[in-house]
Structure formats: structure tokens, C-alpha cells
């Protein structure tokens, strides 16, 4: 089950890299968060770890539900550009993604015997981090950059869950709080974006 959920996590992130429409990108982010939340619930249940179950539930509510919905509302309210063509052409991206995966598995090799859980999970977390960075880099528009930032946070959550068996509850809650604050700041920044891009509304 854990393998399946991590596979879905990685697959949704890779698909998000090739997406050229904003709402679809938000959907992939939502699915990415959904698989992460379910993963935390599965591991939490297996380890009888109440804190991880709570983290999983918050992930489901906040990242899989509330944040994509808020971002969609914000994009409608401020008339953000919905056609988000990546700067990196698909044929190059197809080569780049496996290269990143191979590189991170190679990078994680020396630490495979040092982590408590499956070392491949750590490799996938690190590769997700790089893929999220790639998502931020390959777009000029603000919305995909925000999704990249949120995906990076998901990758770190995955790393925390798989490499350490879950971070302390206080840290998890603090990260969620910061995430909410990031959404408030993004909202404030978008008000200005609306003024700058008023000509782009309805695109």
C-alpha cells in the first residue's frame, strides 16, 4: 500500500510538470497531497503513531482540499492566466525527469543503510524536491511557481515521514501554520498581480 501511494505521489508530480492548464495543475497538486495524506495515515496506523495520523488528516483537509480550492478561487478572482505553457519543451523534460530520478537514487545510495525505513523512499523524496524545483523554474507565471513551492513542501513532508518515521507533532503543526501564512501573503501579492495583469483577465 505504501509503495502504491508513493508511486502515485511521484506520478502526480511528474504529470504536473507537463501540464499546460492551471486548473489541471491544481488538480494534480491536490492528488499529490491526497496520496501524501493517505500515506501518512497508512504509516501512522501501522506504527500506532497518533501524531502522524493527525498530520495525515490535516494534510488531507488542508493540502488536498482547502489550498487547491483557495488557489482556484484566487485565480478566478484575480483573473490569472490559465494557459501555463512550460518553458522547457516536452521532449527535453521527458529526458530530464528520468535523469533527475537516476541521479537522486545514486545520491541516496550511501545513506541507504543509515535510514530507518526504505532507502528508496528517501530517494523519491529527494527527487520530488528536485522535480518541484523544476516546476518552479520551468514557468514564468506566478501560479505554477506557487504550486511548485507547495509541492516542495510536500516533498519535505514525505522525506520527514519516510526518513525519520515522522517529525515531532509541534514541528508539523508549525509547518502547517506557516503554510497558511504563505497563502495569506500570496493573496496579498495577487491583489497587486491583478492590477498589473488586468489585461490578461479571462485568458
Amino acid at each position, binding site marked *: 500500500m505504501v509503495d502504491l501511494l508513493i508511486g502515485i505521489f511521484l506520478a502526480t508530480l511528474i504529470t504536473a510538470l507537463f501540464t499546460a492548464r492551471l486548473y489541471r495543475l491544481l488538480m494534480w497538486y491536490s492528488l499529490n497531497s491526497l496520496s501524501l495524506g493517505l500515506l501518512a495515515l497508512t504509516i501512522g496506523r501501522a506504527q500506532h503513531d497518533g501524531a502522524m495520523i493527525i498530520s495525515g488528516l490535516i494534510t488531507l483537509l488542508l493540502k488536498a482540499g482547502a489550498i487547491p480550492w483557495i488557489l482556484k478561487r484566487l485565480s478566478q478572482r484575480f483573473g490569472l492566466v490559465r494557459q501555463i505553457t512550460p518553458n522547457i519543451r516536452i521532449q527535453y523534460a521527458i529526458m530530464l525527469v528520468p535523469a533527475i530520478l537516476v541521479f537522486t537514487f545514486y545520491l541516496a545510495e*550511501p*545513506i541507504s543503510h*543509515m535510514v530507518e525505513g526504505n532507502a528508496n523512499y528517501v530517494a523519491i523524496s529527494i527527487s520530488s524536491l528536485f522535480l518541484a524545483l523544476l516546476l518552479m523554474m520551468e514557468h514564468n507565471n506566478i501560479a505554477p511557481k506557487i504550486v511548485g513551492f507547495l509541492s516542495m513542501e510536500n516533498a519535505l513532508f514525505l522525506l520527514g515521514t519516510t*526518513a525519520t518515521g515522522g517529525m*515531532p507533532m*509541534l514541528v508539523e503543526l*508549525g509547518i502547517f*501554520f506557516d503554510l497558511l501564512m504563505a497563502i495569506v*501573503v*500570496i493573496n496579498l501579492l495577487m491583489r497587486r498581480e491583478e492590477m498589473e495583469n488586468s489585461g490578461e483577465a479571462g485568458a
Partner: protein
Amino acid sequence: MMVALLLLPALVMFAASFLHTPRARRLLPISSVAILIPVGILFLHAKPWSIWGDYLVADDLNSYVLLVSSVVGIGVTLALLTLDRHVAITEVSTRRFYRFFALFWIGLILSILANHMGIYWIGLEMATLSTVYMIKTNRSAAAHKEAWNYMIVGAIAISLVLFGIILIYASAKPILGEEAMLFDALLAKAHAIPSPFLFEMGFALATVGMFVKMGFFPMNLWLANIERASFYPVAALFSGILESAVIVGFFRFSTVARAVNEAHLVGFVVAYTLLTIFIVAFLIYRAKDFMRLFSLSGIEHMALIALFWVGGGTFAALLHFGAHAFLKPALFLSTGVLESSGRYHIAGALKGYRGVRGKLFYFLVSLFLLAIVSLPPSPMFFSELYGFGAMVDAAESSHHLLAMIGATLLLLILLSVIFYRFVAIYQSMKYEGEAAERPVYAAEVAALAIFAVGLLALITPAAMHFLRSIA
């Protein structure tokens, strides 16, 4: 109780930012002065002092950093009173600036006092996010672009720090459990960490994140562009408070890393800081406006602090840190006056200041400019003297004497390039260009005077003795 006392001034500032009366603004400097009361209590108490369990623990190092940051906060709130006379800012934006400044303060108090890596990161992230809106109070297109830049690059930097923290936690969790998040527990068991490689990988990533946040290689122009685009108090807050919180984190992480493998720590940090100073020295040489000049100089000084700290010059690093924390905000706030109403010229920038306030402003800016290039009796003169001395001492006891002396010589050459540029700029400000009468307000002169007093306090025997005791 102590946590509430420490956070109360920031909470008062946050609440006052919602009041629509102009009198509320007068409350803001008072609230920032009020933080000196709990900080004073920290100094009176025996240390280490658990303020909030194992999460927030006051020791001499973070009490010192908090005191310096509080004084900087007082200076900045004073200068904020006259911000609208130098730049175009609306009442709503000013109130929002204070609101986010209060959140910024809360984040930084948590970060500075944190004994817990997670709390440290949460505070730093909170401060980073609140700064984004402070950059945006300038309603220019450039500031808007830089606010997004800060959001994105800042998020990447802070994510690298969290990435590093997770790996460090994973490396020590088998022996410490959840206590692997505590700096003091990590330090106590540093020799027993079962996977030092994992720890070092985490340390390297966290350090790169912190260094990027301070504008080190490869993001040397990142902060300079942001500070150029935003209003001058933002730059003062960055250099005087935010960077202080980042460097405290570096001090904490590197202390543990030293116990794990000192040679790796020194090699990594010396190479990184040398590369940064090498690039920054040439960027300073080509800087054509005050903001970029001071911003790049800030990177150089933060690199020197990191270098002195790992090179064995703990006292020098702390002295340099205090001097930089007072000098750089003072210079950024002065820039607001020097560039008032969009005036960007270096030539003749110091001309035209008349009356007692004008003359005092002229004197203080000259003092800060000469102090930042380490002319004696600037605290930076002593810190560099002790810092380089400590590096040579450390090299003598290692197998890398020639490499360390070579690095020190290279550094001295690069510092002379910076020295030359600053002196040339000072002369241009003083002797070239046309004189035109320019206003200086009492609040900003008072802010600069506070920084000057702080600077003088650093070279008193009592302060030096205290810093040596931390080392």
C-alpha cells in the same frame, strides 16, 4: 510567563496596526523599547534558562543576539516615524508594514531563542513570509517583482534548511529519539551519532540554505536587488535582525558539526565564504548606488563572521556580528535620507546638511562609513585583528598552515579592494557634486545616535569581557 513578556511588545504593535488613529503610530517606538525589559531580565537570570521547556532556552549567546536585535528594532521603529516624508507611502500600507513587522518580530524572537531545530525553522519561515509584504509596501513594479522573487527564492532557501534539519534529525534519532531535534542534546551526543555522513549532509544542506538566505554564493545579487527595490527600513531589518537570526542558526548547527568533524566543517565553510567574498569584492567595486553597496558589503561581513566563527575566533565573530548589526541598519537608514525623494547620486551626497540636526547627521554617517571599513577604533578593526589572528593560530595547530595563510592573504587583498572603494565613495560624497539643502528629521537622527551608542558600547571593557565569556 517569560515568553508572554517577550512577545507582548510585538503583539501590542500588531494590535496597534489595526487602529486608524495617527496617535497609534506613537505607540510603536514605545512598544519596541518595551522589549528591553524582558531582554534585561534574561541578562539578570542564571543561564542556561529554560523559558519554554526544552524548546526555548536562553543562554549568553542568544541573549546577546536578542539584545542587539532589540536595539536595532528600536532604531528602525524610530526611523519609520518619518518614512512618509522621504518616500510615497499610504497610511494603509504603513499600518500593514507595522502589522507584518510585528509578525516578523515574533518569528525572530522564536528563532533566536530556539533550542529546537523545528522551532528555529518555524520562526525563520514566519519572519521570511512576513518580510514579503514589507517589500511590497513600495508600490513600484520593481518592488512587486522583487517581493515575488523573495517569496520564491526565500522559500527555496528555507526549504533547504528544513531538508538539512530532517537529515540531521534522521541521523541522531536512533540514539536520541525526539530529542534529536534539540541543539543541546545533539551537542552532548555529537560523538555518538551513528551516521556522521548523514549528519554532515544535513548540515551542508542547512548551511547552504542559510547562506543563500544571507546572499552568499551563488545568490550574491539576490538580496541587493530586493533591498534596492524596497523601502529602506526593510533593508535595515534584513541586515540588522533577520540576518542575525540566520547567523545564530549557523552558530548552533556549526557547533554540533565541529564536534562531529571539525576538519570537514572548517574546509567547507572556509571554501564557501572565500568564494563568496571573492565575488562580492568585485561586485562592491562596481556598485553605483548606496543600497547595493551596503547590501553587498553586508554579505562580505556575514561571510567574515562565519569564517571567524569556524576559524576559532569566536570572540572576534561575536564582536564583528554586533558591530555589523548596528552599522548596517544605520547605513541603510541613512540611505533613506541621502536618497530622499529619489535622489541616487553618490557625488555630493553628504553636502547640504545644515543646522544642528544636519551637522549631527553628517557626522554620524561619516562615522558609520569609516567604521564599516574597519578604521580604528571601530569594533570591526578589533574583530578583524582578533579574527585573522585566531585563524593563523588555528592553522599552526593543523596540517594546513600554508593553505590557511594563503587564504588569509587572499582575504586581505579582497578586503583592501573593498576598503579602497568605500574610501573613494566617501570622498566623492564629501568633496564632489553640488550642495543642495536637504531635510533631516529628529527621529532618524535619534535612531542613528542609538546605533552609534551601541557601537561605542561594544568596545567598552565590560562588553569585550562579556563576549569573551561567551566564547
